[in-house]
């Protein structure tokens, strides 16, 4: 009975907003349905998933557990329209709505993970053992989150301490020497709660080609430690402190050279919530994160071949005020500041970014059926142009079955430190890359040293500021929910990304090579549609499927094709011929079609569950193979492929569960082109509850 009361109190808090909208007598059933479908990320307040005007996906703990996924990349890959793509360093990042991984913001409990040394945030850094749910908001969202939220936002919400004391130990071992052991304990009594999550992951690496002296993946291991403390000072005041320490070590082996790559990622996050009165609520948040990565390579004799280091710091205080004085409306206001610092090899200086920001958002109903969200944010900055990011989203519930929704938002990505302060000369080939803010001075220095033959751009172009890459994202959707068992969603998206930063030659060197710097040059358009559907066939069987159509094109490329400036050759010895506009395929590493299918089966009597999941992507091009610098129909493509996974889990006795499964059942590999897919992985898992 005491438990029940406490639970209801807790639910009451969580669902305060929903509760206001619903008649009193229907609360219990709505709570049961809504509880597992509450989303934080879309509006920065709890909102029921099914009522949102934005395209949002949610991955629940239950799904993660039944698929036995270990790292974030594994689960994201199975979501409609999402795919993980390895960058040059082998780091896996997410592609969302056709946008590269540096244009999607990755948050843990609402605060960003840092450490994008080459633009990509490694999704394998994130362990899933204590994840409550993963929320994916698609479409430009800088109106709430500032920089990086062009394609969307992925927010990983970890478990908070539950009443009582419980713990679990899970171990999974598989082929390719992948071993993961994690331990989660949480405790809550009255006002005090705490939890501790520890995960150790080890990956033996693999080599698909076996001949070129390079591993496809060098072996590595990492440890994640994630403690949380919660304390309620009273009805109205709550404190939440979370820490996260991540440490990874990788053994490098490149030809005969050996080395090591080390990553340490450390952050602490404090959140104090205070209900001020019946209308106002305040929230104070402090976040500090540090990411250190260093690597070296040496010959067998111990002579250094190369070394690099990267040390980034982010500190962010933020104050939020939420007003709920008008029925059905929430007004959220935030003010904060990002302080960033980076020390890195090949940099002209140690840059410090200070970027204060304010944002405000109204979310409410006009009448019974029209939900309106309108918000905007202003980010000031000391090193590039300040940004104003508005967003408008609407949802209209036609009836119980149909709803239409649409949103328009602005997104931006601040130029990264590299694009501003890089000062790098390649010792073997002899070219030089200079950051925009460093270019003028460094060019003068190179010129004084007699290394410059010819300056291509006027140095005064560097007097101006580099613009952040920015996008306008439009999403138009419809949802169809004929019954509790069946639902389908359709979403059309269109993103125009402008001022994309790319390198351009600024001078020719006397050694015949070039000096490059970064400029706002490109414009890219990504558009397409997504369909998602779900069918609860019976109590025990659920089937779901998703599809994304994507067209992603570079505007300059399109113009070049239109003007007839692009040519191709059918064979190396035949003369070139002119290409037409329709011969342009689009951006690299984008598949026109992606699809997924999932079947989940649950047998309560047997205390067992099983699932089969498949993903498909159609052909894509990784590089230009015919010398014209564009991906066209006559290039060599990488064929489409599908990956199927199965998993079976069964509980024995009360506290013991074991699982078996195969990832990549059909053993798909493409050693030449896709180094991130090792082949068939067979695993076993045991879970013990304490």
């Amino acid at each position, binding site marked *: 009975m005491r438990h029940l009361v406490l639970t209801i109190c807790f639910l009451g808090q969580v669902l305060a907003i929903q509760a206001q909208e619903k008649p009193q007598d229907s609360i219990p059933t709505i709570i049961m349905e809504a509880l597992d479908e509450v989303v934080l990320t879309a509006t920065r307040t709890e909102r029921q998933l099914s009522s949102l005007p934005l395209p949002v996906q949610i991955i629940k703990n239950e799904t993660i557990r039944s698929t036995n996924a270990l790292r974030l990349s594994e689960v994201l890959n199975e979501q409609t329209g999402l795919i993980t793509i390895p960058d040059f360093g082998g780091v896996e990042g997410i592609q969302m709505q056709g946008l590269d991984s540096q244009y999607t913001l990755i948050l843990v409990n609402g605060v960003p993970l840092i450490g994008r040394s080459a633009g990509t945030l490694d999704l394998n850094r994130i362990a899933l053992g204590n994840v409550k749910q993963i929320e994916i908001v698609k479409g430009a969202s800088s109106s709430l989150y500032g920089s990086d939220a062009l394609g969307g936002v992925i927010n990983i919400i970890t478990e908070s301490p539950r009443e009582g004391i419980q713990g679990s130990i899970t171990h999974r071992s598989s082929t390719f020497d992948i071993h993961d052991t994690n331990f989660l304990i949480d405790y809550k009594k009255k006002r005090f709660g705490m939890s501790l999550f520890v995960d150790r992951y080890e990956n033996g690496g693999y080599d698909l080609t076996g001949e070129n002296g390079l591993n496809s993946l060098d072996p590595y291991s990492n440890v994640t430690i994630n403690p949380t403390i919660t304390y309620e000072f009273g009805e109205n005041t709550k404190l939440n402190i979370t820490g996260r320490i991540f440490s990874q070590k990788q053994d490098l082996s490149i030809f005969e050279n050996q080395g090591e790559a080390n990553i340490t990622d450390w952050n602490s996050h404090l959140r104090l919530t205070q209900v001020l009165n019946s209308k106002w609520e305040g929230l104070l948040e402090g976040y500090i994160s540090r990411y250190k990565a260093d690597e070296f390579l040496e010959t067998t004799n111990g002579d250094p071949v190369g070394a690099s280091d990267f040390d980034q710091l982010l500190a962010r205080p933020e104050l939020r005020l939420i007003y709920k004085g008008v029925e059905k409306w929430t007004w959220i206001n935030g003010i904060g500041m990002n302080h960033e610092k980076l020390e890195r090899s090949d940099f002209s200086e140690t840059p410090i970014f200070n970027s204060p920001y304010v944002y405000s958002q109204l979310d409410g109903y006009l009448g019974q059926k029209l939900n309106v969200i309108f918000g905007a944010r202003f980010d000031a900055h000391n090193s590039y142009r300040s940004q104003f990011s508005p967003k408008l989203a609407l949802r209209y519930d036609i009836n119980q079955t149909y709803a239409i929704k649409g949103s328009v938002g602005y997104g931006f990505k601040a130029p990264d430190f590299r694009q501003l302060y890089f000062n790098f000369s390649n010792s073997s080939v002899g070219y030089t890359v200079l950051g925009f803010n460093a270019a003028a001075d460094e060019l003068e220095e190179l010129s004084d040293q007699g290394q410059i*033959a010819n300056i291509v751009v006027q140095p005064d172009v560097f007097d101006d500021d580099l613009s952040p890459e920015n996008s306008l994202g439009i999403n138009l959707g419809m949802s169809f929910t004929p019954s509790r068992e069946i639902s389908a969603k359709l979403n059309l998206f269109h993103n125009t990304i402008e001022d994309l930063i790319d390198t351009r030659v600024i001078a020719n060197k006397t050694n*015949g*090579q*070039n000096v490059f710097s970064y400029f706002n040059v490109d414009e890219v358009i990504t558009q397409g549609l997504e369909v998602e559907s779900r069918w609860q066939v019976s109590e025990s069987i659920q089937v779901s499927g998703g599809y994304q159509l994507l067209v992603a094109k570079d505007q300059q490329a399109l113009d070049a094709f239109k003007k007839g400036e692009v040519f191709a050759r059918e*064979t190396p*010895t035949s003369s070139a011929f002119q290409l037409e506009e329709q011969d342009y395929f689009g951006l690299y590493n984008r598949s026109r079609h992606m699809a997924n299918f999932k079947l989940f089966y649950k047998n309560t009597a047997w205390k067992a569950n099983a699932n089969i999941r498949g993903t498909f992507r159609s052909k894509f091009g990784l590089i230009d193979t015919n010398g*014209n610098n564009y991906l066209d129909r006559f290039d060599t493509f990488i064929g489409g492929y599908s990956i199927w996974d199965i998993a079976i889990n069964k509980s024995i006795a009360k506290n013991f569960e074991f699982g078996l499964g195969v990832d990549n059942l059909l053993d798909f590999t493409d050693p030449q082109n896709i180094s991130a897919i090792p082949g068939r992985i067979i695993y076993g898992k045991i879970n013990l509850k304490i």
Partner: protein
Amino acid sequence: MKIENFFLAVLSILVFTACDSDNDGPVLDEVASDTVANLFAPQSGGQDQGPISGEFTKFDFATGLETTSATDWDIAFRGTAIIINGGASLGTIDEPERTGNGAAYIATGTFVSVTEADDSLFVQDSGSGYAIPVGSGNGWYTYEFMTNTIEPIPGRVLVIRTRDNRYAKIEILSYYKDAPEQITPEIAADDLRYYTFNYAYQPNEGVAQF
């Protein structure tokens, strides 16, 4: 019946036009068109092995052959660099002296569509750079660092003024031995610097069409 008539008509027009030009114009030498395969243009140094050096491989359009002559050459190759017998040396090691009046520019189009040399566009080699610029994407090729390959940019035609004021055009097809379909990592590492190219040479002085 009708078809035969049609063909007869076409044939007679062709014959008449051909006769016309034969009768009216001066007697001209024919434009020479050919494909040169595996012209080897080695270099020493470069890519961390010290400064680039080595003899350029010279080519003479009048004979359509490789040459070692100090004066009777039009263009010359060393690695990805192509120089012209006209202008001044950039000053790299082993660069030959320019003795002629050669010049060049890069036209965009198919080999067939570039039918005339435009005198206003010609550039000579100089102390600040070659008429045909070096570097990926700047001149005749792109370098793909992921596969370590040099690909001739399709649709780039090098238009050349020879040492003695004749005109020629070149379409480079391959940088690898025997112009292979697939450039494997082995080919990329071992069989490079073998030029295969189409060319057309207008031997008549003062005629810019080819």
